[in-house]
């Protein structure tokens, strides 16, 4: 399911309405493009602007991508699929040098459960993946420092899976008619290097050993 939506989202990513009449349009992109707006969740700002792309802002700590991370993103597929970009900061006292971490993250949340008429909605499960690039490491390897393939892994690029849930609160609609929501989320994640360590040592290491936790806020505008 997730790859289908990801593909659909990528196909539908430009803020123009996909041409649905062409014989080459795939079933996936059509499925996303013709999804009707759900009242109070996503409303078209004005005709011609794709309504499945609400913008959101993010504020996050942890998750291996910053003590403090700020970012933004787009939602697709009736806000089930988020594509986020974050920039995180780690001060030198926690990592030896001050680090700046750029992250791209895709999350898919198939269910949203409204909690009565309280304006609250629970997203019980979101799954996804992230990739990050770290700037500012002391020893990421200089040109000619090591023979080829001396270290097989990248010091700067990390990738890993993400799993989480969130609780949303409906805010008054924006002036342009968009539904606004404030969401508190957590994510459990790990990275490729921790994953390799766990895979090779399932007796000595547990999943909690390799887990990281992110806590964040998302403001949909």
């Amino acid at each position: 399911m997730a790859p289908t939506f990801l593909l659909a989202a990528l196909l539908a990513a430009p803020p123009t309405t996909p041409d649905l009449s062409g014989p080459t349009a795939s079933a996936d992109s059509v499925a996303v493009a013709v999804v009707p707006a759900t009242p109070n969740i996503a409303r078209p700002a004005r005709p011609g602007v794709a309504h499945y792309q609400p913008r959101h802002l993010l504020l996050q700590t942890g998750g291996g991508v910053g003590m403090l991370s700020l970012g933004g993103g787009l939602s697709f597929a009736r806000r089930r699929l988020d594509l986020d970009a974050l920039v995180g900061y780690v001060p030198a006292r926690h990592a030896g040098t001050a680090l700046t971490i750029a992250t791209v993250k895709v999350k898919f949340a198939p269910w949203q459960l409204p909690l009565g008429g309280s304006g609250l909605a629970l997203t019980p499960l979101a799954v996804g993946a992230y990739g990050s690039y770290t700037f500012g490491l002391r020893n990421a390897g200089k040109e000619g420092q090591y023979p080829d393939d001396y270290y097989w892994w990248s010091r700067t690029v990390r990738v890993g899976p993400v799993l989480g849930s969130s609780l949303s609160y409906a805010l008054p609609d924006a002036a342009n008619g968009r539904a606004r929501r404030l969401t508190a989320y957590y994510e459990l994640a790990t990275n490729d290097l921790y994953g390799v360590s766990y895979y090779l040592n399932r007796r000595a290491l547990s999943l909690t050993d390799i887990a990281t936790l992110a806590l964040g806020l998302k403001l949909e505008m």
Partner: protein
Amino acid sequence: MFPFFSSSFLRNAFVGALAAGLSACELVEFSPNDHRARADQKDLTAKNLARLIAAPLPPGDTLRFVFSGDSQRFYDDAQDLVRSVNQQPGVQFMLISGDISDFGLGREMRWIDNELRKLKMPYLTVIGNHDHVANGREAYQEIFGPLNYSFVYADTKFVLIDTNSREYNFNGRVPDVPWLRGQLADLNGASRSVVISHVPPQDGDFDPNLRDAYAGTLRETSSLVFEMNGHRHDYSVGQPFNDGVTYVNSYDFEKRKYLIVTVFGDKQFRLKQVSF
């Protein structure tokens, strides 16, 4: 009865909450290069040295320690190694010749400590090239301690020195030969000396411009029992420079073997290989 139960219950709850809070703090990781650690997993070199010095070798007993290296990402093997070493009688401490971590990450160093802290005896480390990767040098200093240090135990001065020249892009200052010379010139009352480093001087990762000065310093040290290294992941003993100085290389954890080193008399020693 009730107040006692209540207070111990509260105390346990408080300690539990504190532990959960601390682990939550580590769980909210800022970066894999984040080197924050619980208080009891910081300054491990100083803590292990304090434990060692607190139990001096009784007169007449023989200096005996376990020598291994390159624990890297071999955590299952580390578990078995600890079980085996804990059955060895008459061993006073364990030495690990660097590459505690594989990727230079603080969490890896803490994973290794999670196993090695179950040893009945203290353990001491020297930094390896993998511990320098990314911001590993800072993580090592936070979790273990100094990159170059020495201690005296059982009439022997142990000098542990960073020889991972390539990680400094061969800047001509690593290893710090003047520091080594100073350490070996004054043995603080000991009569024997042992030097431990990760990269052996005959290796391509050792600064070629400092090789002669380093090997020469060892050659001129009459108290030297041997030089001990890791990095090569296998046991060897020999005199690569044919100058009377013996170099001993450790097994890595993955080989599932280690050495029991006994030092006695003037500069005599015995190496026993143990499989686990």
